[in-house]
């Protein structure tokens, strides 16, 4: 990790570059700094705290936030008196660790690398642009990032929303969208794609903090197109009573200490209101140093200074061996950035497959300290605040003190964020100091965080099985936020139960098994083919299974990408590569019929023409795609004049001829989407409609094109297409779901009746063709989901393991996800996601071994009576009877065991115990649950 560093140049060629990097000194030795904070205390030089958006003041030597990595302070060289004037030196004298070193000099490094990934993120919108909205002039106009810090419990106001001008509580807050986005006058003509969502989030959080706040949000279009976002927005709108106004506010005035907004709605009416605070939803610009990075790395930028890429290779820059991920590729939110990040890892890994493992370092764990277990249980309880997530509801200090009264507890503490690096470090130290041999963390869900904490235990030589969590966030604070007292009582109970179990925990061995170096990819569409090729390029045999008799999926019906590329050529390139690649075996007309086993050792049955073949493989990628929604409404299927966008594309692919007799085309958006059939937004139909409208205008400029929409969601650079369409005379009319357009069939032609908001009345538009922008419906996902035991969302798409941080993984280990099976998305996004799934799927293959969770069953052979009930009942064939002398005894096949425990609960002789879930552990939890028993025990 090299901080305070900038890229100077990249020389050489793909596979063997030399990157020149310039590093400025921190003036504090990272290895010596203990992050005690003495230097900040003694420094006489105040500086604005940029981490808290200058809402606070710190000193020249400081740390941005307690959880920062590296966990070391640094000195702001611009402000430091010692660096600039050779005076002061106070901090160096007071630092007991002697970590401050003013002799540090800038360094120039030469890094030998095979590939380069550019992920510099995004830049800020110029203050000049913000000044148009009164920012800088009126103190109560704040940016969204400043507002984010104001709502944060560890922020400058400890989570209280106060007006910067007079530190009073605002009553009315307005959010202005598209500040520095969708605005050519400031150079940012694109849509930043994230502001609509974060504005709703910030408004909701604000309402949670201050329920009587009155919040208005000013949108041009509400662009919450992400997976599950529309539903979340709707819920927030209803729950918090957020007021949505469709207008762009041109400027902000200050009147008597309040802020005056004037706007015009789309019915032509003008409005004026006063607010106490205005939040500017600031967009994402290209990074400030984009030009410098482009020059140093020899890549090209697009017209907005973002990295130039194409829709069929979204992660490749214009220079081979140099790749791009995240917001530098185009404005995007966290899950998409994370997806691209994994995708770009696949690209680098494809290029450098032959060098895998030559430079890597492996982590080693210290030996387990077995002497710990010779002592009585010494339980340590850590109760997490999780910022305000838990502490905002549950009385964390009371729970902590209560934990101290429980038997066996020798240490009880509260932590702000248990999962942060600094907290983990401190927990580890306390475990060692106090010789804890059982650890309970009361925080979030073990499903998400247990591995992290167990890793911490391992790193200090404590067996990870000696750990238990009490879920006081997901299943307590979050769901009982209106009943803080009851929630606190519940939290105490859960902690008591966890401690009771923890006292009985025993160390468990950590078995590992070999991985079969082969992948199966389900689905031969663009995503499936991309994923299969990537895994094969990374050096692993891949089987591509396609149900139909042709490769291509939905890509076969697409004619042009959004950036105007020939979709047919992309399809041909992909299929040619798949068919000729020695690492990819293509099985057409093949059905996936089932899968057994576990990560590293799956066995799938594939059926082709009535023949079933069993294939052993280590990982599975689900790329089973989606399908276009088939509408019943708007007279679809009854007239050749009513078609879908894909059908329109097919007509347009024959050139201008089909448009011969066409005078007017009406496109209707959100057919199927955001409605009764599919509640979600299909994400790409808006861009698709605009793309096709432009194609029509290109072929025949005098065709009148109408687009009837609810919100135009041409996010990212597609906004350019939207603007161009408006310029070329495409007419956009907004409709609301309670006043849907009507298609009226007449003897000669078709009319569309729609409510015109500006006129305030219904108008009738004659249409040669009506084009329905139909949404994307899930494929037959239920069956596949059942076979691989993976959960689906309520909308019928596969559910990822974590919406933000694990977007291409499924809850089942060893199964990965990409493309339309995950949710509606564009070709560009599908390709990024396919690469990401390929990277994730290759990780276990590359490691060659996977750890098996030690929750397996264990048979006590001295108790076993050899009845065979367990062997019979086990759903995974993971237990068998073996002869031992004259008797038969049961035995667990550890690698197959899933830890379900059906054997243990049916064993007549109580001879089977489950790792981490033994009878006595569960009984202890039951007893701890019943307080009466618990008190009796304490007396005895």
């Amino acid at each position, binding site marked *: 990790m090299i901080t305070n560093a900038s890229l100077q140049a990249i020389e050489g060629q793909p596979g063997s570059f030399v990157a020149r990097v310039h590093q400025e000194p921190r003036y504090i030795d990272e290895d010596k700094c203990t992050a005690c904070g003495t230097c900040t205390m003694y420094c006489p030089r105040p500086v604005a705290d940029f*981490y808290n958006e200058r809402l606070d003041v710190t000193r020249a030597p400081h740390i941005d936030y307690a959880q920062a990595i590296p966990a070391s302070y640094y000195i702001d060289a611009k402000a430091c008196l010692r660096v600039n004037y050779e005076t002061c030196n106070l901090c160096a004298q007071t630092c007991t660790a002697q970590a401050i070193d003013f002799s540090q000099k800038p360094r120039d490094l030469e890094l030998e690398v095979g590939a380069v990934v550019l*992920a510099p*993120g995004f830049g800020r919108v110029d203050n000049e642009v913000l000044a148009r909205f009164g920012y800088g002039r009126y103190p109560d106009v704040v940016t969204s990032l400043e507002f984010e810090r104001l709502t944060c419990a560890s922020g400058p106001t400890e989570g209280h929303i106060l007006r910067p001008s007079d530190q009073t509580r605002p009553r009315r807050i307005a959010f202005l969208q598209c500040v520095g986005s969708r605005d050519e006058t400031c150079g940012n003509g694109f849509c930043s794609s994230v502001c609509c969502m974060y504005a709703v989030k910030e408004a909701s959080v604000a309402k949670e903090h201050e329920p009587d706040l009155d919040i208005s949000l000013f949108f041009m279009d509400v662009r919450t197109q992400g997976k599950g976002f529309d539903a979340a927005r709707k819920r927030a709108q209803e729950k918090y009573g957020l007021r949505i106004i469709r207008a762009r506010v041109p400027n902000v005035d200050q009147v008597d200490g309040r802020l005056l907004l004037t706007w015009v709605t789309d019915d032509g009416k003008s409005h004026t209101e006063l607010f106490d605070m205005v939040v500017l939803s600031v967009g994402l610009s290209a990074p400030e140093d984009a030009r410098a990075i482009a020059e140093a790395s020899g890549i090209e930028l697009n017209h907005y200074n973002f990295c130039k890429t194409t829709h069929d290779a979204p992660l490749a820059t214009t220079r081979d061996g140099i790749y791009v991920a995240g917001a530098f590729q185009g404005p995007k939110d966290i899950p998409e950035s994370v997806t691209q990040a994994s995708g770009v890892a696949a690209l680098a890994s494809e290029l450098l497959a032959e060098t895998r493992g030559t430079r890597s370092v492996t982590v080693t764990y210290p030996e387990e300290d077995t002497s710990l277990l010779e002592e009585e249980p010494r339980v340590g309880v850590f109760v997490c605040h999780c910022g305000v997530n838990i502490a905002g509801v549950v009385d964390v200090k009371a729970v902590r003190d209560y934990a101290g009264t429980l038997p066996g507890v020798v240490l009880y503490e509260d932590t702000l964020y248990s999962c942060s690096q600094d907290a983990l470090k401190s927990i580890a130290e306390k475990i060692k100091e106090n010789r804890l041999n059982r650890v309970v963390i009361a925080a979030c869900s073990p499903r998400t965080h247990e591995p992290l904490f167990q890793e911490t235990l391992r790193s200090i030589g404590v067996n990870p099985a000696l750990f238990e969590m009490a879920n006081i966030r997901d299943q307590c604070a979050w769901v009982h936020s209106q009943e803080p007292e009851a929630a606190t009582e519940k939290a105490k109970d859960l902690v008591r139960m966890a401690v009771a179990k923890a006292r009985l925990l025993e160390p468990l061995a950590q078995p590992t098994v070999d991985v079969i170096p082969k992948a199966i990819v389900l689905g031969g569409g663009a995503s499936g083919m991309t994923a299969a090729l990537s895994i094969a390029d990374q050096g692993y045999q891949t089987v591509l299974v396609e149900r139909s008799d042709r490769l291509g999926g939905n890509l076969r019906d697409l004619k042009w990408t959004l950036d105007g590329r020939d979709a047919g050529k992309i399809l041909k390139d992909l299929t040619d590569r798949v068919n000729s690649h020695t690492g990819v075996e293509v099985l057409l007309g093949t059905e996936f019929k089932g899968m057994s086993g576990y990560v590293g050792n799956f066995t799938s049955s594939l059926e082709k023409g009535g023949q079933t073949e069993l294939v052993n493989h280590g990982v599975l990628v689900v790329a089973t795609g989606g399908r276009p929604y088939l509408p019943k409404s708007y007279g679809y299927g009854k007239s050749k004049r009513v078609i879908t966008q894909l059908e329109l594309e097919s007509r347009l692919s024959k050139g201008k001829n089909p448009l011969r007799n066409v005078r007017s085309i009406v496109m209707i958006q959100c057919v199927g989407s955001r409605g009764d059939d599919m509640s979600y937004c299909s994400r790409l139909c808006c861009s698709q409609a605009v793309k096709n409208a432009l194609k029509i205008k290109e072929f025949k400029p005098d065709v009148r094109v109408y687009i009837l929409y609810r919100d135009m969601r041409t996010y990212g650079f597609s906004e350019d297409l939207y603007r161009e369409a408006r310029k070329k005379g495409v007419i956009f009319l907004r409709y609301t779901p309670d006043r849907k357009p009507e298609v009226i069939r007449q003897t000669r032609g078709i009319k569309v009746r729609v409510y015109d908001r500006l006129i305030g009345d219904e108008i009738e538009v004659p249409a040669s063709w009506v084009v329905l922008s139909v949404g994307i419906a899930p494929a037959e996902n239920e069956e596949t989901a059942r076979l691989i035991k993976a959960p689906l969302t309520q909308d019928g798409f596969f559910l990822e393991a974590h919406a933000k941080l694990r977007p291409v993984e499924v809850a089942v280990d060893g199964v990965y996800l990409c493309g339309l099976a995950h949710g509606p998305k564009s070709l560009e996004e599908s390709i990024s996601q396919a690469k990401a799934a390929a990277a994730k799927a290759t990780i276990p293959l590359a490691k060659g071994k996977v750890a098996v969770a030690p929750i397996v069953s264990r048979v006590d052979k001295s108790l076993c009576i050899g009845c065979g009930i367990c062997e019979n009942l086990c759903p995974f064939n993971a237990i068998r009877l073996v002869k031992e002398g004259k008797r038969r005894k049961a035995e667990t096949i550890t690698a197959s065991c899933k830890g379900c425990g059906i054997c243990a609960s049916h064993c007549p002789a109580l001879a089977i115990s489950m790792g981490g879930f033994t009878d006595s552990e569960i009984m202890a939890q039951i007893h701890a649950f019943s307080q009466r028993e618990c008190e009796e025990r304490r007396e005895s």
Partner: protein
Amino acid sequence: MKKTGAIMVLGGGVSGVQTALDLADLGYYVYLVEKKAYIGGFMAQLDKTFPTNDCAI
């Protein structure tokens, strides 16, 4: 030409960190180059994330 099994990742935000972690898991050496004093990028400044309002840090 001999290839080098190391990769430079420029940028220590959520994208850069995720890339670095995946590449390390895939068996490569990673140089994570960040222009600021700390990694984390903008995401570290966020309080909560949409739509689940999970903690961002």
